[in-house]
């Protein structure tokens, strides 16, 4: 039976109200989690950043004390520099390598799924185990890396134990972990209509032209996503350095989060560590916003044109 117009309107309003209530029921766990484990801690850490808190004694208000300490702290500057070096070299390399890796893996050839597995394998390896293998590969006496250098008649290196090579060694190592980025690119590639290539081919375009003028522009949302996420991730690099070098030699791999960890959990300077965390947050946020701003000029979203 169809009710009157008024009844139907009331029922509809009732349903909408129910949906509104339901939405909050469904969102409740996330909202509680957000307040308890993200927003609350962020406020707490913002307050702690202005305090001296060494766990055993009650917190003491410092004002800008932690930040002036930071400005004069050579290890803060060192760790920030190391992290910037690592991030700005490894992220572009990772994004480029993963894009070309994905293009390779997107070819229609026999056995490509085995290759996909092989390319993705190192990204599955737990960080601790992975770092231990690389310590072994980079072993100055018996490592695989030096065996390879010797094969080409090059002098052996000390890798992680050489203060000039420790960061590059970690960057090299990070290139084995690009499986996740490759997945994002593969999905992006699979969304490019083949028609475009066929049309370009008719117009006499060569392979490289097509990569430059079709593949790369249409992959720009994936490039953007991987760059943003890659920079946020690289700013937080920790486990590799913690296990492989402990920050050495001579603080060459003292990365920002490693320094933060030491302050928080080894020296128990919770206030100073919180201040460090907020500075990292501000830097990351600035880079993310900058990328969103710049992205407007080079990221091409196909849906806009539809």
């Amino acid at each position: 039976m169809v009710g009157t117009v008024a009844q139907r309107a009331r029922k509809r309003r009732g349903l909408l109200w129910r949906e509104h209530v339901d939405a909050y029921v469904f969102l409740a766990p996330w909202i509680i989690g957000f307040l308890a484990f993200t927003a609350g801690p962020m406020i707490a850490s913002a307050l702690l950043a202005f305090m001296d808190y060494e766990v055993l004694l009650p917190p003491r208000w410092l004002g800008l004390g932690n930040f002036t300490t930071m400005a004069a702290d050579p290890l803060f500057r060192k760790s920030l520099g190391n992290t910037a070096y690592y991030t700005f070299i490894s992220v572009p390399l990772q994004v480029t390598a993963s894009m070309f890796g994905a293009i390779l893996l997107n070819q229609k050839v026999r056995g490509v799924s085995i290759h996909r597995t092989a390319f993705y394998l190192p990204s599955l390896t737990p960080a601790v185990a992975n770092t231990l293998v690389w310590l072994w590969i980079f072993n100055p006496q018996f490592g695989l890396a030096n065996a390879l250098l010797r094969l080409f008649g090059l002098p052996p290196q000390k890798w992680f134990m050489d203060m000039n090579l420790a960061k590059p060694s970690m960057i090299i190592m990070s290139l084995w972990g690009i499986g996740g980025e490759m997945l994002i690119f593969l999905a992006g590639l699979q969304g490019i209509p083949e028609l475009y290539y066929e049309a370009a081919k008719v117009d006499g375009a060569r392979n490289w032209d097509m990569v430059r003028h079709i593949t790369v522009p249409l992959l720009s949302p994936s490039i953007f996503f991987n760059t943003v996420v890659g920079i946020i991730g690289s700013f937080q690099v920790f486990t590799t350095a913690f296990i492989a070098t402990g920050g050495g030699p001579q603080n060459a791999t003292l990365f920002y989060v490693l320094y933060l960890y030491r302050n928080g959990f080894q020296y128990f300077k919770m206030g100073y560590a919180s201040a460090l965390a907020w500075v990292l947050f501000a830097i990351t946020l600035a880079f993310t916003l900058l990328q969103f701003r710049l992205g407007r000029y080079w990221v091409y979203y196909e849906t806009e044109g539809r």
Partner: protein
Amino acid sequence: MTSLSATIRHAEKKAGWSPARIALRVLLHLVLITMSLVFSTPVLWMLSTSLKPVGREFSYPPQLLPTTIVWRNYLTVLSAVPFGLWFRNTLFITIASLAGTVLTASMAGYALARLRFRERGFWLMLVISTMMLPGVVTLIPRFLVFKQLHWMDTFYPLIVPSWFGGGAFNVFLFRQFFASIPMDFDEAARMDGANSFLIFRKLILPLSMPVIATVAIFSFLDNWNAFMEPMIYLSSREHFTLAIGLNAFRGRYETFYALLMAASAITVIPIIVLFFFAQRYFIQGISITGLAGR
């Protein structure tokens, strides 16, 4: 499709098996095989070293394959430290957080994709902003909260947060997937008197197995591989996870690479086994993670 295969197909239509096409195919296979070997080297080298007798791993030139396979290293490792216990701890933490993540992240994703309410845009923005937040910002206060709750050296800090939203990225993945299901389905069900809970359980979730599998796999990997948080929260050996245990083991057997690699392999092998069994879902996961990049 990428340019190269499109070109190949085009050439194929025009000329059949021309020498240039054969050369291109051979080159492509060679490049793929080389790259696959390069990418697999660390894991293969780990397995190969783990099967060499202790002391014999240091040979020059390096022996890619062990001449005699020794399983003893695995026994040595397993009797030196309680990897079995650590394995159970890791599995427990991983499964418990995985369940919470899949449940609560899918709930939030459902509300953000399919329920009509005024503040939806606001909450979605908040989820996306949280995705961009470096986890380390909340590290210290979270630690202090868990300490206040007397949760130190328990599994709670590693499991409980997963039951409250399961991470913004997972919420976003669920939302993106749910949003791609035609809205007519819900409308029809609602007209028949179904409420949101019924629609979620009987309609949306059964249609969403690929995204559930993807989130489950990523959550499994995250927790299995986690290092910093377990290290901060777990202090007694009986509560260690594999990752922390492996690091402790390494402290004692620093230079015994055959043993170290066997111990590492013990933490890696379950992941590889999972990968082979769940490969289909991994491949589906490719297109679903791609949703995040759009």
